[in-house]
């Protein structure tokens, strides 16, 4: 299995899911992730596993709910408008504490939008997305290899913490082809699924539910979820940093935007500008420690996203006024270029001295 192959993101993540032991895939066609449904329809049959093209995204997420409730590894994939439809199901998965993997290959929005890549679903993904006080783990890979590595991680996290995990990709990642290696690494040790619905032979009935009408019980469940989320925030953050030690300007970006940012930062360094970047890989839990630490020294933070600015709010929250946090982005399917970002960096080097003086007064 350790050979390098050239695959597009959509098909690669599907194959990675199969290697990670996905028992069932349920999905509905939507651009730009149709390669996933097509690939899964063929490969799952080859592996003797379950594939259903559902009648809607509403149905798909509920099929995932069903399979998951019986203890199976189930996943679905969609793109922004379809993910909106799935929010009811995701809330139910969170409330019923069921594992699931949901892949969102983001496209331009709002509404029908377009089929170009986007990062406009960050809020939706990192704030639960549906009704109620819950979170989903959110992984934001930036390459096809990282997308492939995210899949077994997503299934393990979902099973370990009994919750939905969102893999946040975008139209570029889904379509682009890169050389990758499928490595079957040993997974984590996971608790047994003794809560699963397998038929009550020889034991008490198991009930999977999210309705708790008796006063105080739902409140207790919410605190239980919160305790789980605090554990995750302590133990599961993934983040990458590059050249931040002496940086006067730090760019923060994730996913495909981070690839473009890396190009701009490399060029800026060549021009002698002291710039670095921080790349959250888990968008929830957000790398609060790493960003907070970087803000202990005075520098300018520039968040770059393919949206009107969503992750920038989390960066601002974490930095809590210790340093200026600026934003550059392109919404609605627009993709920033290395030149645009490089230009912004250059502008900031001029502004930075002015800002520093202002802050000292």
């Amino acid at each position, binding site marked *: 299995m350790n050979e390098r192959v050239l695959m597009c993101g959509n098909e690669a993540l599907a194959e990675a899911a199969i290697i990670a032991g996905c028992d069932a895939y349920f999905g509905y066609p939507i651009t730009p992730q149709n390669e996933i449904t097509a690939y899964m329809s063929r490969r799952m049959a080859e592996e003797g596993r*379950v594939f*259903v093209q559902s009648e809607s995204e*509403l149905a798909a997420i509920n099929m995932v*709910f069903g399979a998951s*409730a019986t203890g199976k590894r189930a996943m679905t994939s969609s793109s922004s408008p379809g993910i909106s439809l799935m929010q009811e*199901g995701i809330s139910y998965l969170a409330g019923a504490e069921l594992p699931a993997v949901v892949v969102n290959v983001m496209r331009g929005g709002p509404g029908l939008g377009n089929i170009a890549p986007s990062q406009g679903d960050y809020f939706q993904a990192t704030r639960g997305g549906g009704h109620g006080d819950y979170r989903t783990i959110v992984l934001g890979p930036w390459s096809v290899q990282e997308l492939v590595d995210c899949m077994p991680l997503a299934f393990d996290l979902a099973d370990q913490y009994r919750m939905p995990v969102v893999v946040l990709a975008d139209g570029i990642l889904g379509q682009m082809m890169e050389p990758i290696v499928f490595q079957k690494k040993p997974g984590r040790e996971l608790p047994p699924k003794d809560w699963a619905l397998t*038929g009550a032979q020889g034991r008490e009935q198991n*009930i999977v*539910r999210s309705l708790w009408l008796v006063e105080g019980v739902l409140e207790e469940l919410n605190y239980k979820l919160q305790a789980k989320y605090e554990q995750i925030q302590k133990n599961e953050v993934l983040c990458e940093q590059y050249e931040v030690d002496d940086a006067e300007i730090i760019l923060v970006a994730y996913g495909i935007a981070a690839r473009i940012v890396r190009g701009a930062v490399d060029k800026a360094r060549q021009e002698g500008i002291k710039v670095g970047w921080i790349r959250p890989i888990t968008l929830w839990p957000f790398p609060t420690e790493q960003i907070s630490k970087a803000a202990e020294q005075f520098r300018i933070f520039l968040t770059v996203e393919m949206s009107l600015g969503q992750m920038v709010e989390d960066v601002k929250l974490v930095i809590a006024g210790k340093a200026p946090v600026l934003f550059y982005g392109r919404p609605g399917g627009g993709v920033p270029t290395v030149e645009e970002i490089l230009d912004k960096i250059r502008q900031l080097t001029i502004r930075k001295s002015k800002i520093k003086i202002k802050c000292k007064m």
Partner: protein
Amino acid sequence: MTFCVILIAMKPVFTRTPTFKDCPTHYCPGCGHGIAHRLIAETIDELGIRGRTIGIAPVGCSVLAYNYLDVDMVEVAHGRAPAVATGMKRTNPDKIIFSYQGDGDLAAIGTAEIIHAAHRAEQITVIFINNAVFGMTGGQMAPTTILGQVTATTQRGRNARSEGYPLQISELLAVLPGAIYVERCALSSPAQIRKAKKAIKHAFKLQVDGADGLSLVELLSPCPTYWRMSPAKAMEWLEKEMTKSFPLGCLKDVTRGP
């Protein structure tokens, strides 16, 4: 003396069926859910499938069905039961999967899910409780409310022009090749309830035998509270009036010849 001998010789001929839990239910006096639950519990016990049955509870008055039926159960989003059942049955073909849904669940919000589950010939059993009203939320019109029926949202009686006609789910589903058994029964009298039991048992047995499609039993059920009738009157109204909009009988059974 003879009396004592008779007592010792007696043995129970009718007991609580084990899958029906020994606890009070929250249903209204005269509600049909209690009867339907019992028929399902009896079926599960008679077929000996309690250890491998998984039930799906809907959103509605029977959302707490898992407190009354002693099998593995899941509570799902409104109307989504057939999709959940699909996920469960496809990944666990050896388990007996059944959904229990009301008319809001199945004939309103969940109509796409039931049609497509039947269309895909999912090998599941669906028990559809039709009481012509949304009970849980306070007696609003359901797709199955009959013309002229007064409800919280049809306060001058259901009008075909503005609210459409009552939805005949069984007729709709019987057309689909993937629906292999569709029957409509009533929970209005002992005779009808016995027929309903036969239908429910047939629907479960088909799944046990690995039949290639979906079975649905529609049970016309009384809701005295929101029909604003006494339980006895509700049973009468069901048998006399509701059956005019929802004729009883077997709409389709691929296992029986024409």
